[in-house]
């Protein structure tokens, strides 16, 4: 029996997400189906080899890696399984959270759709067509954000403008790249390729100066949806960029690309840190923290490109996203609890909430520390690697990265100081439900354990990343 991997990982989930749409009025059912599907697909991604013969009982099953559609092909090889595992684990993790927190009914089906579109963007050949699929994901994101707010506000408009502008730039750059088989340095079109490509990537990845939509959107929409969407979007768009670089060796060895990632990382970490220090709204703080995180990913890639063994170094990209995913989910979960209570995330309105939501506040605190790469947290080893690497290569960038982390830390602690302030109302005691406490405790403990014993998770994720980066 022959199956087709791209059909399994693109078509089936897409059909499934469409199938969930008529069911959205039954939120718990949709959450149950969504999380069950995502977790089972994560298991399948882990167990099912691609391109190899597998014997199940009396059946011999072979999963083909390629699928052609409208003249384009989607290629999913064995080495691509790591990001599928991460995607579906992430989806499952976020969907489980929806049992205990308030999200829009469209969150589960559209979340699945966004994930599938982004997966397809990494698998499509020629690679630059991925920009179209990323734009489709952006469309679904706009639908999700506006459905929650019931209006198209300025932040979402800005997001849409930047994402839709990115697509033509990247398509044009891709088209020009595919047309140049000789050394592009030698042809006059190379400068134009760089300009188009770097502009496209900046717009797509929320690079400077196109990052302003992040805090603006985070201030308005449900933080749970926001953190989910921005997490998987940033992960996949960076993966898209990495795939592009991997498949075009002359690009990855170009000084322009290294300078682009380093300079963008420098600006984003600096700007994210500065914004986080001065925030007056917890949602905006999450937005700025994300800017700093995206900046850090840029710095990781920049460092990888100049290292002696880029693929070995860039394998850490997968290590980098694991704590970020848990942290963003926890932060959003805690913020959702606060907003359900107070109706606002304005910092001064949060006074004393820490005493009413102790588990959420502990989770918030641990998440803040993890986000900034504080020692003893899960993100510390990867921050250590980036900071030290840049200290060796170019210390101002390392300073900027540290400044970004400290800025996010100060902003988070300002919120903490307000949350734990004692007010009379806080005598009510804990208002968290049992399921919320369980979810928060498990996630926080996982985060703490990963921080204290990084050897338990780091090598495995690194190997996943290495497998992806070393594939052709």
């Amino acid at each position, binding site marked *: 029996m022959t199956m087709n991997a791209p059909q399994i990982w693109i078509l089936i989930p897409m059909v499934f997400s469409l199938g969930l749409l008529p069911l959205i009025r039954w939120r718990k059912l949709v959450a149950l189906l969504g999380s069950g599907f995502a977790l089972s697909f994560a298991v399948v991604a882990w167990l099912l080899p691609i391109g190899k013969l597998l014997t199940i009982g009396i059946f011999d099953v072979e999963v083909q890696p390629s699928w052609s559609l409208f003249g384009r092909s989607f290629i999913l090889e064995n080495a691509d399984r790591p990001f599928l595992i991460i995607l579906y684990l992430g989806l499952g993790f976020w969907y489980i959270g929806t049992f205990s927190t308030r999200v829009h009914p469209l969150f589960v089906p559209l979340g699945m759709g966004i994930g599938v579109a982004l997966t397809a963007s990494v698998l499509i050949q020629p690679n630059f067509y991925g920009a179209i699929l990323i734009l489709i994901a952006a469309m679904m994101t706009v639908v999700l954000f506006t459905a929650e707010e019931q209006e198209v506000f300025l932040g979402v408009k800005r997001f849409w403008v930047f994402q839709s502008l990115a697509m033509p730039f990247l398509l044009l750059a891709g088209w020009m790249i595919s047309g140049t088989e000789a050394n592009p340095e030698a042809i006059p079109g190379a400068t134009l390729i760089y300009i188009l490509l770097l502009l496209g990537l900046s717009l797509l990845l929320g690079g400077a100066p196109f990052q302003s939509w992040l805090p603006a959107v985070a201030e308005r929409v449900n933080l749970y949806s926001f953190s989910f969407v921005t997490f998987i979007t940033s992960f996949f768009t960076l993966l898209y960029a990495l795939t592009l670089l991997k498949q075009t060796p002359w690009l990855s060895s170009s000084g322009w690309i290294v*300078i682009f990632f380093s300079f963008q990382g420098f*600006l984003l970490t600096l700007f994210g840190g500065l914004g986080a220090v001065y925030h007056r709204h917890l949602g905006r703080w999450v937005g700025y923290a994300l800017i700093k995180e995206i900046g850090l990913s840029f710095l990781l890639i920049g460092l990888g490109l100049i290292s002696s063994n880029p693929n070995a170094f860039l394998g850490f990209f997968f290590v980098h996203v694991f704590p970020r995913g848990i942290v963003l989910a926890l932060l959003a979960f805690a913020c959702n609890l606060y907003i359900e209570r107070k109706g606002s995330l304005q910092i001064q309105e949060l006074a004393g909430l820490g005493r009413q939501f102790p588990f959420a506040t502990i989770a918030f605190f641990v998440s803040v520390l993890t986000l900034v790469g504080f020692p003893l947290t899960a993100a510390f080893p990867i921050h250590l690697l980036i900071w030290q690497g840049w200290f060796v290569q170019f210390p101002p960038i390392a300073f900027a990265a540290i400044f970004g982390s400290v800025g996010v830390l100060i902003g988070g*602690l300002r919120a903490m100081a307000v949350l734990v302030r004692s007010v009379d109302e806080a005598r009510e005691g804990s208002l968290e439900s049992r399921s919320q406490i369980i979810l928060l405790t498990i996630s926080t403990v996982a985060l703490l354990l990963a921080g204290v014993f990084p050897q338990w998770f780091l090598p495995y994720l*690194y190997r996943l990343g290495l497998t992806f980066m070393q594939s052709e």
Partner: protein
Amino acid sequence: MIPSIFLIGAILTPLFSFASLIFLQVRKVRLGFLWSSAFVGLALTWLFVLGLRFFLPHFVPLANWQPEDFFPISPELLADDISWVVGFALVSVGVAVILTEATTSEGSRAFGWACSVLLVGLGLFAIFAGNQLTLLLAWAAIDLVELAIWLSRPAQPTLRERVILAFSSRAFAVMLSLWGLGNPWAYLFAIILRWGVFPFHLPYLESEDLRRGLGTIIRLVPPLTTMPYLARLAELAYFSNQGWMAVLLGFIALFALILWMNSTDVLEGRPFWVIGTASFAFNAAVQGQPQTVLIYSLILAISGSFLFLTRERDRFSFAVMGYSAFLLLGLPYTPFWNLVRLYRDQISPSIILFFFAQALAILGTIRLILEKPRREVVGEPWSIALYRLAFLGLIGTSIMLGYSGWGKNLEAVSNPAYPDTRYWVEYVIGLSFLLLCLVTVVLIRLRLVPRFRLPSRLVRFFSMEWIYRVFQLGFRQIGSLFYRFEDILEGRGGVLWTIVLLFVLARFLLFLIGGG
């Protein structure tokens, strides 16, 4: 196997003791049980550290971070002649703190005991850190606990602001220190911040347990954890030929000890004592004298505890504080004689500064001794006995660490950092301090010396509060600029402004890479 049990046990026992204290507190057991739990935990730790003395040096790898190509350093513990001295001093102070707390009957103090025990455990983790990465991890843990303690207290928003600033600046310093996994200069900032210099003084004096027991531990543990590292740097003569550092540290010590002299009571002067004595230790590291670093760490911890743990001025405390002042003199053949190794036969600006600073430290202590007795320590006879036992234990520790044990081992090392000869100055300088003290005491008794009081303007200057104010002003100004920038980018014309900014950035980038 046994030394590893001692070393790991010394660190884990206080942590388990902390956990058991929290558990017992939740179960609302009697205060006596809580105190016993804290005491047993620290007494066991004391035994573990004492036992470790017979197996030095001993090394224990804790974890192996992988891939090793990218993480060449992994956490590990090292107990040697340097770290053991500081570790033993810390655990002795910890035991003394819990013993002095026996006189209290307030239930709310149990939280302070738990935190003290935890901080001692984490302090030992930092002191026995086998490499710089482990030290940074331990520092981070201590900072976190300290932050949690501060934030759990009711306080004014302005004080919370200071707490956040103190924690964030330390976190920044820890992150910056990662540069220094091969470059100790990067650690300077982290070490100095651990003395509590920024914000200069966290004025948390309203809570009784923060005044005495827990407050003493919070003040002493962070600077004490820097001492083994400083001693190792001294051993390597890392800062040799850095005369400017000695002068700078001399000024810091002098300023701090002027404020120590000027403070109205011992607890108000505590942060200045810490900064002053830690500056001496750092100067010893600059001079390449590991033994002197260790002696000043003992002065910081043990002499400091004599002063800060004394609850009332009775006859017993008079004797204890007298002993503390006696140690500070550095008289020949006294336990802390090595502290005068700082003074050589060549006069330099830093030596003059440190001479005056040490004189101020001694006079400040004598001033406290000469305060009129207020009242006796009250409590059950057994609790007063325990209270006094705490100080006797500290006296025993100072004698033990000063005369035997580590000293011989260190001096046996054939390293120029451990000289076995003494300059003539070392014999006379202690005597000159003694003379100065006697003259001062006589003058005070004859009422010929007016009470030492700095003008308030000078106090404000020395307190460095103005630096904090300037920083605060700058912070707010940058904030208002940032809000405007944010409004422009997120406003209706944001996309156009973004394009303008893009061109500016592109031009700047071209300029940076030499594109004209």
